[in-house]
């Protein structure tokens, strides 16, 4: 355990020096404030408090931004050590590869949690400041924070796995961007196209819920929107959220990080420096 913490401290320090903490936090705060400013117009007639509306917008933001930040922080984790030539020496130390990856994960997850908490916190402050009733939405904000951390953990694990497989930072960066595009953007577009051509048939009723659960980003969106009963405010793919029981999307959110990290560790164990 002390070895994991030592690795985490060291990684956090490196991320801080490389301005990753500043970049991640700055991006989240900026986007959250822009969203809450843009989302301040349509209120009152929706019938929910101001913060719940903000959370619905933040969910759509987090689906794109959290995986992106996670992949940007993780793609260099192993490939960077290989390129700098620091990996062989590290692997002769009495520390297991699982411990090395867990140390990196804790550091990166802490940075992500910090960025998410500050970003969402800023948006929440704006909401509560303009509408005291918004304090009722704190529960959904908290839910958004911890699910964002789980979503981040999934993509951190995936980023480590890509970093191991690519062996070079440039290759790993390319793979990370490709994963982001496929998992977060193209997947949803493909689902939308299928829904349109299907026209409410068997696909929409049977396969779509499974398809949404199979993608961690969609499970994250579905969970937050249906838990906040803000489905109407979101629309689009989120409209299908009502069909999926809460426990299923929660399970998907919990299982994905474990699977991604297990994959990364399995790949890292095969590396011979």
């Amino acid at each position, binding site marked *: 355990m*002390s*070895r994991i913490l*030592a*690795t985490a*401290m*060291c990684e956090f*320090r*490196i991320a801080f*020096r*490389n301005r990753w903490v500043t970049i991640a936090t700055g991006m989240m705060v900026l986007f959250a404030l822009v969203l809450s400013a843009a989302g301040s117009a349509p209120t009152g007639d929706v019938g929910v408090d101001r913060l719940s509306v903000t959370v619905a917008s933040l969910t759509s933001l987090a689906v794109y931004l959290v995986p992106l930040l996670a992949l940007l922080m993780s793609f260099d984790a192993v490939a960077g050590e290989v390129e*700098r*030539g*620091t990996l*062989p*020496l590290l*692997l*002769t*130390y*009495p*520390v*297991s590869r699982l411990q090395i990856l867990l140390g990196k994960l804790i550091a990166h997850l802490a940075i992500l949690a910090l960025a998410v908490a500050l970003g969402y916190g800023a948006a929440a402050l704006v909401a509560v400041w303009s509408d005291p009733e918004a304090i009722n939405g704190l529960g959904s904000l908290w839910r958004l924070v911890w699910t964002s951390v789980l979503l981040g953990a999934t993509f951190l694990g995936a980023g480590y796995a890509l970093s191991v497989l690519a062996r070079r930072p440039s290759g790993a960066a390319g793979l990370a961007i490709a994963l982001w595009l496929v998992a977060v953007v193209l997947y949803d577009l493909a689902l939308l196209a299928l829904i349109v051509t299907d026209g409410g048939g068997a696909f929409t009723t049977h396969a779509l819920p499974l398809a949404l659960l199979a993608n961690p980003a969609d499970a994250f969106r579905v969970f937050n929107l249906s838990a906040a009963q803000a489905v109407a405010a979101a629309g689009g793919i989120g409209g299908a959220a009502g069909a999926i029981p809460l426990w299923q999307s929660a399970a998907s959110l919990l299982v994905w990080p474990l699977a991604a990290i297990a994959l990364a560790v399995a790949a890292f164990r095969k590396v*011979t*420096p």
Partner: protein
Amino acid sequence: MTRTLTISRLTKRFQSVEALKAVSLTLEAGRRAALLGHNGAGKSTMMKIILGLIPFDGGEVSVCGAAPGSAAARSQLAYLPENVAFHPALTGEEQLRHYLALRGENPRQAMELLARVGLAHAARRRIGTYSKGMRQRVGLAQTLIGRPRLLVLDEPTSGLDPVSRRDFYDLLDGLSAEGTAILLSSHVLTEVEARTDRILILSGGALVAEGTLADLRARAALPIALLVRPAPGRAASLTAAFPEAVAGGDGLLRLSCAQAEKLPLLARIAALGGEVADLDVIPPSLEDIYSHFSRRDGQ
């Protein structure tokens, strides 16, 4: 004496290339062995196998009684890679604190270790600003953590100036006196000659020679060179006395003989008395012995 490192009939193949061919060696506690060989002779491959970084195909390796790469073996050995590298964003002190923590030692020893390798003044600067020699010293400092029983050093003195090299070998002397076994590879043969107990020569993946320098010298039986400077005006008579000698352009006569003929030859030269102004006896250097053994395979 306890054996810190035992290797028997170690074989390693990379696809069709046989990188190591049935190499056997043992290293006892407190002994220092130098591994010599051309680039590609198998030195780094052997070190990586001992460290547990790469698997091997045949034979047996035991590091401090454990399998290479096992937790028990890794906790008792320290490694200095060739061209050691660290994260440029960390300071020397932070990097060493991290390594201390990974070995379960108190991170507060970092400054003391850096002082031992002469880096105390730069401890709070980022490693990105260090010179190659300074990075090498950080690498040395991390090998001193927690009294390792086996030190594996790949070209440890590359990038160090002569004074730092001497300090480095003094550090090694201290460690071996405390019982640490040391396996190092080097290209600087003169320092290996003075500072190690045993020399191992790898060539084409096979161990072609092993022993102390005196052993190897006797086995190679290379000729000894004698340089004779004639007294003024006596060059012609000396050349006549030694028809086998080769006259150099510098006025010196060069003779060579086998080890057993050295004393009779010296007696002949001494018998000439005033004809000889000066005499140098040059034994075969480590370079000569090294070339002799590593060329035997037709390389």
